[in-house]
């Protein structure tokens, strides 16, 4: 057995395979399919301060090799999350990472303060891809200063590990990564969805009610991998790689490019067992390739 454990700051994961926010519900949805405790960690659907209804339909569209979504972060709000969702999550032995988002910069420390009083949360992932309403709707990680200051404000209110989840829709993601590192993040996760769009020709309407949407799935893998590599060259904190990971090989590519762990997103939808298959696939691959510790792989890209 190879050693698949790794550390994200002080957070120890049993293996590098976690599941991406918004693609795994609050884990209960997957209990019929897999043994949740075999995962390295579970990242919850985004939680916000107030309940949100989500966007009108159509919210999703299938494109060749990818999908578009504009779900609109529907969720019951942080209070009901604590009373309705945390009890189940607390029954699990895998790491629980709660993903949070704010409408304004102030929302982040406020929601984290509330969650910090709750047991059974191992870390936070800060969803920085949602629109910063006060700043004209640009996402929180579109701007290095904003990303740094929000991270700082969260750092000030919690000792739990914080993971900043970055949008890829920027000119230089490395700068944003540096900023959140500066702000005190323990790790970054990269990437959230890319901005995409599709049109229904007969009606001339966008295929998603909100017009533009987030693009995910196999089609974005090469893009996400390049973002992870860009971050790896620039920053010093661990990177959790996300984007189009559909099988063990995809996961290994992200590790080689510089990720310490990975998240499986869209692939959960067509194969709810895929995350566990990847855990098993990594174990097999490491054994066959005489990898003692999975951490050897991270950033092992060979360049002439």
């Amino acid at each position, binding site marked *: 057995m190879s050693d698949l454990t790794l550390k994200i700051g002080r957070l120890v994961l049993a293996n590098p395979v976690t599941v991406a926010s*918004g*693609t*795994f*519900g609050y884990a209960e*949805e*997957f*209990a*019929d*399919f*897999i*043994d949740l405790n075999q995962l390295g960690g579970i990242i919850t*659907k985004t939680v916000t301060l107030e*309940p949100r*209804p*989500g*966007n*009108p*339909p*159509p*919210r*999703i*569209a*299938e*494109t*060749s*090799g*990818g*999908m578009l*979504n504009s*779900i609109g972060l*529907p969720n*019951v709000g942080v209070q*009901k999350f604590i009373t309705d969702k945390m009890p189940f999550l607390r029954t699990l032995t895998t790491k629980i990472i709660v993903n949070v988002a704010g409408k304004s910069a102030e929302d982040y420390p406020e929601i984290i303060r509330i969650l910090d009083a709750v047991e059974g949360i191992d870390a936070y992932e800060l969803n920085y891809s949602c629109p910063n309403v006060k700043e004209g709707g640009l996402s929180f990680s579109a701007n290095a200063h904003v990303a740094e200051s929000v991270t700082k404000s969260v750092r000030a209110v919690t000792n739990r590990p914080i993971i900043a989840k970055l949008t890829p829709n920027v000119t230089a993601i490395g700068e944003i990564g540096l900023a959140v590192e500066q702000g005190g993040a323990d790790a970054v996760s990269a990437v959230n969805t890319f901005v995409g769009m599709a049109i229904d020709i007969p009606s001339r309407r966008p295929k998603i*009610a909100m017009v533009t949407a987030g693009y995910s*799935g*196999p089609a974005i893998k090469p893009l996400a991998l390049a973002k992870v590599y860009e971050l790896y060259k620039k920053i010093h904190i661990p990177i959790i790689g996300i984007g189009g990971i559909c099988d063990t090989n995809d996961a290994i590519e992200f590790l080689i490019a510089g990720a310490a762990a990975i998240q499986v997103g*869209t692939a*959960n*939808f*067509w*194969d*709810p*067992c895929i995350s*566990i*298959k990847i855990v*098993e696939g990594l174990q097999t691959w490491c054994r066959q390739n005489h990898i003692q510790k999975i951490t050897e792989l991270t950033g092992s890209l060979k360049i002439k």
Partner: protein
Amino acid sequence: MKTLKKAVVVPVLANVQVTHDTWHITLEDKQIAHDSCGGQFVNVFVPQNNGVLWRRPFGIHTTDPDKGVFTLLYKQIGRGTTALTTVKAGEALDILGPLGNCFTHTSDLKEAIIVAGGIGIAPFPLFIQHLVQHSVKISVFYGARSKIDFCCLDFFRQTGVNLHLATEDGSSGHKGFITAPLLAYLQTLPDKPGARIYVCGPTPMLAKMKELCRDTGVPAEVSVETMMGCGFGACMGCPVPLENPASDGRLYALACKDGPVFNLEEIRFDE
């Protein structure tokens, strides 16, 4: 790879074309054959994925719990259903299910009025199998574009249901939409309080049904169709707008988890 219940790879026993565009596939799985109720669906992984990312949902059409088999009735409309037609007996399909909720059969039900448009007929035979066992009176109002589109007519005749047909081109039954003979029937219905309508069909028909049920005062349940990213509540891609915010403030229900069956008066179709 051990997986828990609900994700299964099942043998295909037959896959036959039943109309110019509709197929009937027979699958073997004891648990699904045993546990499913009318209205529930399975989500099928489509072989050869030419960019097809999502599974495709299909209502459970019939079950034979003794033999441990169940069937689906599907219409070939795009990439996924076309790929499905190429699956052969002896192969296997990767499916999730049973998923979703069921048409309800309360003890006060005296007459079930089933209203189906086109392939919307698919989920009803399983429900009818159940109702027949409980000796509920069954009327089926079934509309299609043309005579050649009808499926399962033999099944309805054998079951002895009270069958009404309509075609848009007049090739069989009433010429026009099925809602016309349905309205006439409801207006003369002696025992309205014991009757309940069950609908599945295209969205314009559902909107029309909503009006009709409001006017006649007969309650209805509807099985809705939406795009489904996952089929089990994970993607939140299948919202169904609610007429009134739910008690917890929600504006939308999820077709795959809270449905696919809803009370017709609770949901909206205008978006």
